[in-house]
């Protein structure tokens, strides 16, 4: 019956989103963009796509940062339109999609304050999808307890702090741990939410969120090599879901470099199939493979109708497109045209 009642509330946003997805840049657009000589050319080519004439700082300053800011503003505009048109579970779903950006912004601001940077500059660097009112007030906190009690308790992030408060001062290390704990809570909460929505949404988002959990586990393992994070602490940061849970996590915790991680991954589906496609063995290669797998999942979920997974997938695809544009713009500005095709994924 989900097919018969989905369109009641969510038919219009879904159809709009499929229109957005159809307007993403394709191979022909990227081929044209890679042949551009300078940023003005890039802007001209983008004007004929869905980006249109880019507004904002990029009109006067021709820098890559301004260009990417203008492109991200387009993503935010589309996202906000979708949120306006949605109600009920879809609205909550879109709110949950914003949480990772909020977490990143919080960590950015707090770590910026540690290095004595000014809040207005930091606010400009924040991702627009993750803005909320109390963000500017984060500068007042000096340890995690204060961070929670004074500022974050009124925000959507409040429930993700459960069980992870400590009186420790906010150093870089503890900030990273805090970020990972928040992400862990968020993934598990999102999984529960999609389970309650049920139907195709639960099935599609389970796949996405399992992959996300695995990806974070791998990232934590690789990034904590050489730090004094104990194995128990590391396992505490891994999510309670994903293909690598629980046996993979047990094997991943003692891994010290990319080789060992690859060995662990080759024992679990779907990673053994992905890994068999390459022979390179370093952090960058693992990252590349996982990104490509994620993009495959995102494109694949559009073949099913009447579920919310497409909203999540579209945000991922659009962000990848913006990263592609950033790579292309940087290569053009730094005159490295021979490498321009390496970083573009679609």
């Amino acid at each position, binding site marked *: 019956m989900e097919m018969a009642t989905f*369109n009641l509330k969510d038919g219009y946003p879904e159809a709009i989103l499929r229109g957005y997805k159809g307007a993403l840049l394709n191979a022909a657009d990227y081929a044209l963009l890679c042949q551009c000589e300078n940023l003005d050319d890039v802007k001209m080519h983008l004007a004929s796509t869905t980006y249109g004439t880019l507004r904002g700082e990029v009109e006067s300053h021709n820098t890559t940062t301004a260009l990417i800011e203008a492109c991200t503003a387009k993503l935010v505009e589309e996202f906000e339109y979708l949120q306006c048109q949605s109600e009920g579970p879809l609205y909550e779903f879109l709110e949950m999609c914003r949480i990772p950006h909020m977490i990143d912004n919080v960590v950015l601001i707090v770590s910026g304050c540690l290095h004595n940077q000014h809040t207005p500059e930091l606010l400009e660097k924040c991702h627009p999808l993750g803005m909320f009112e109390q963000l500017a007030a984060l500068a007042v906190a000096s340890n995690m307890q204060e961070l929670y009690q004074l500022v974050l308790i009124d925000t959507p992030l409040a429930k993700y702090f459960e069980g992870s408060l400590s009186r420790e001062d906010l150093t870089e290390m503890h900030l990273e741990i805090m970020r990972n704990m928040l992400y862990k809570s968020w993934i598990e909460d999102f999984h529960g939410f999609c389970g309650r929505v049920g139907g195709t949404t639960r099935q599609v988002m389970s796949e996405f969120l399992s992959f996300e959990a695995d990806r974070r586990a791998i990232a934590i393992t690789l990034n904590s090599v050489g730090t004094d994070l104990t194995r128990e602490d590391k396992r505490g940061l891994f999510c309670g879901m994903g293909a690598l849970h629980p046996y993979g996590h047990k094997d991943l915790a003692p891994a010290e470099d990319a080789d060992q991680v690859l060995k662990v991954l080759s024992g679990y589906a779907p990673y053994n199939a992905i890994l068999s496609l390459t022979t390179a063995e370093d952090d960058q290669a693992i990252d590349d493979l996982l990104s490509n797998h994620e993009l495959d999942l995102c494109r694949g979920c559009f073949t099913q109708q009447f579920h919310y997974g497409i909203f999540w997938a579209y945000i991922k695809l659009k962000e990848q497109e913006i990263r592609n544009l950033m790579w292309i713009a940087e290569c053009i500005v730094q005159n490295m045209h021979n490498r321009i095709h390496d970083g573009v994924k679609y």
Partner: protein
Amino acid sequence: FFFIHLALTMSSENPFGFEFENFQRLLDIPMDISPYNYAATGTGFAIALSVVGAAWGIFITGASLLGGAVKEPRIRTKNLISVIFCEAVAIYGIILSIIFSGKMEDGDGTNFTDTDWYSGFALFNGGLTVGGCNLVCGICVGIVGAACALADAQRPELFVKILVVEIFGSALGLFGVIIGIVMTTQAKFGG
């Protein structure tokens, strides 16, 4: 007290005692309702359930069509065919209910002949048949129509292919109409 009562009532011919009498009266109810009532209710089901199916299908298709047409205006006119297919389901309901109500003629209100009873039952169940078939047909055409609009927005050549699926779905309503007519050809009141 209960067992004494049971023993006394079970002494009669009916093995169930007093309960059987009430149960027998329950079985009498269907024949206490006038066959005209059955016929009219069947006519009502025919049109009402058909319209529910058509409306359901139209809103399913319409929501997706609206959203898809924002980014791809060219799909607007072609995909109205899906809406027309859903509408056809309601029209089947109208035709059948007009035919059914044409069969109901004036007659004696108390002495019903066997033909009257037959007609009442035939029209009631014929109406349920037609209404039920059209209800699910409308939902089916609506869901396929939504998919058709979204696929057409991405790739124009898919439109005709998915339309074939819709035509097959539309045939379900026709099956209901045919059977409804076959069930009620012999129905005749009065006379």
